[in-house]
């Protein structure tokens, strides 16, 4: 079970994998995620969006960036290896209907979770405009896939190495001012990017959906570790989300909560454990 069927490196730090998971592939809908764990004894449970699924083959696709221990260990796995634990599909599916003109904004690795949503929006008959951003050309992912579904595709890089030299909020603002006005915006990326996308659309009253990537443990509503403040309410991202109204999310609080365990990733002790673990896995 859970064996890796296909692996591809998309950029320096980003990998794509197709993993055998027939039950999840059958049930999943756009917007949902899985939690996976490598090493049943001591491994961490981490959430990853289901970027695509093939119910016929019985597989799901994940696209992930190597940021810490688990994502690094996952990147070292090869076709034929298995992921010890994989559970899903979790979270509420995206609400997809014919809205009209939908602007999808993706930043960095956020393009991966955006892809299935953009795909579903297109399939529902929407006009889909896609804005993708990355630090540089090297880090851009899924350009071909997005091009295939977008009615219009705009690419921004921070350093201007490809596409426009701009932040994604710049073209987003232009679309908000243009006619016809977008009926919906979907923004997925680093929290700071989602925060500013929401600020950009707010004055125009364009409903803006964001997908939050809080820290999670169980992913089923049991721990409350993933909680965020939305409006005046506390919500659990794993069961109430991951998608929320970007105009109501308290992003500052969310960004703080993401840093709760940052001390650990930063300590030498942890780094050295991480390197050991990666080296050991590499030898196998």
């Amino acid at each position, binding site marked *: 079970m859970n064996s890796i069927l296909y692996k591809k490196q998309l950029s320096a730090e980003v990998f794509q994998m197709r993993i055998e998971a027939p039950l999840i592939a059958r*049930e999943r809908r756009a917007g949902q995620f899985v939690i996976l764990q490598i090493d049943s004894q001591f491994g961490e449970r981490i959430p990853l969006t289901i970027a695509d699924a093939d119910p016929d083959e019985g597989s799901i696709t994940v696209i992930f960036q190597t940021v810490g221990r688990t994502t690094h260990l996952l990147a070292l796995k090869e076709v034929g290896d298995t992921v010890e634990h994989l559970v899903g599909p979790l979270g509420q599916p995206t609400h997809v209907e014919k809205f009209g003109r939908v602007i999808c904004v993706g930043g960095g690795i956020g393009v991966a979770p955006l892809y299935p949503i953009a795909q579903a929006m297109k399939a529902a008959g929407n006009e889909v405009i896609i804005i993708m951003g990355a630090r540089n050309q090297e880090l851009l992912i899924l350009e071909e896939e997005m091009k295939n579904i977008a009615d219009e595709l705009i690419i921004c890089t921070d350093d201007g190495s490809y596409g426009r030299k701009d932040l994604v909020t710049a073209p987003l603002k232009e679309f908000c001012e243009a006619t016809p006005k977008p009926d919906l915006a979907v923004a997925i990326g680093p929290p700071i990017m989602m925060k500013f996308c929401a600020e950009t659309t707010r004055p125009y009253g364009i409903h803006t959906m964001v997908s939050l990537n809080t820290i999670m443990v169980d992913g089923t509503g049991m721990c*409350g570790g993933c909680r965020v403040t939305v409006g005046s309410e506390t919500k659990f991202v794993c069961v109430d989300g991951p998608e929320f109204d970007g105009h109501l999310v308290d992003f500052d609080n969310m960004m*703080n909560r993401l840093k709760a365990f940052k001390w650990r990733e930063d300590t030498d002790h942890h780094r050295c*454990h991480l390197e050991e673990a990666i080296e050991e896995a590499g030898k196998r």
Partner: protein
Amino acid sequence: MNDIMHRTKEQLTEDARLELAGLTKPLSPKQRLAIPAQEMPAQDPVVRRGNMQEVALGYSEEQARLEAERCLHCPAKPCIKGCPVGIEIPAFIQEIAKGDFKAAIGIIRQSSLLPAVCGRVCPQETQCQAPCTVGKALKSVDKAVSIGRLERFVADWERENGLMQPPAVKPATGKKVGIVGSGPASITVAADVRREGHEVTVFEAFHRPGGVLLYGIPEFRLPKAIVDQEVNSLKSMGVEVKTDFVIGRTRKLTDLLEKDGYDALFIGTGAGLPKFMNIEGENLVGVFSANEYLTRANLMKGYDPRAATPVFPSRKVAVLGGGNVAMDAARSALRLGAEEVHLLYRRTEVEMPARVEEVAHAKEEGVIFHLLQSPKRILSDERGWVSGMEVLHYELGEPDSSGRRRPVEIKGSEFEMDVDTVIVAIGNEPNPLVRQTTPGLETSKWGTLIVDDSGKTSLDRIFAGGDIVLGAATVILAMGEGRRAAASINKLLAEK
């Protein structure tokens, strides 16, 4: 801390040996009442707050036999009525006194499936030991016959001597039963239904089976090896355990019946949804539900440096609540390196729902109790991390509808408490996932599933029990509910 008073298992055993040797049989009731109640040997509090090993070490054979002699064999057997599953208590105690531990465990096993667990975690002082005649005669429930400890003793004796035998399984019936969750209710149903020859599959959302016994109750109170053994015993009976399987997400409940050929289902999903206080500052960095804190520590092995899942580095911890969950969180925080752990409870110690033994252990280990206090808000530093709490004093007012005196805040009594971590342990509710994904499943206003006398829900062929029906309750009640539902399922399948 009474570390000077601390007596080792060897010392307690030696005392018991001498006492046993001095008994002249037959014993009169008066003589029995004069036998000293046997203290549970435990790790030294100073040592144990620095390790995860089990605190209570279990009676020695000598202590168990001596404690068993304290039972008066009352004709009315009031203790049995106090046990939710009706174990034949005087009968098994008599076997212990005789030294026939095998017979003793045999008697317990007729009524209970998880004696090693219940002997450790049952709130005995409010169940079997509450009506015990010995306790009444000596005017203290603490002096009642230690039924739980004796139960634990024979269960451990059985396991340590490799005598645990999975129940025999009848020939295959071709019927299939699905069980959702793998806590004590589900473990019980799995064993009882499998015995009858039905095929059984257990679906568990987590990566390891065991429910709260695994992710909630800490290692130092219930070693995980005991839970694993119970699960392995199920597997050796041929029960299939599917982990990483969330009913309602990976598969809908109704699909199991309609598409996957299951003949009956049992829902034992527990009460896993943490309650918060809804006070200011509850989403600051450093505020955790007890569920999260304990899951990181237990299931994810946060206490082990090899674990990838981090636990928050705390200096001063406040735990809010007065139940077993609060005690477990407080004692875990000490073991994870906190310098100070404060426990705040709105009422007094008398009203605390935690087991008496857990409260005593927490105090011995140095948890600082603040009774009649509760936070008004949690304070933030400039980075959005917990920097303290504003706390209010309470007093007990008029009794409320449940008969408990209601805590009333004392106006103007606010003061600040310096803490960097807050663990909220004020209770759990049922997780709504199965209910939300199963149309027609009737629930109460608290979100618990409604079942009839047979344990059946509002839907045909779907049964439920444990915390999902009772609200956060106890292991033994979950097991009792499991037995009832299993009997109904077996009856249903026999008729079909």
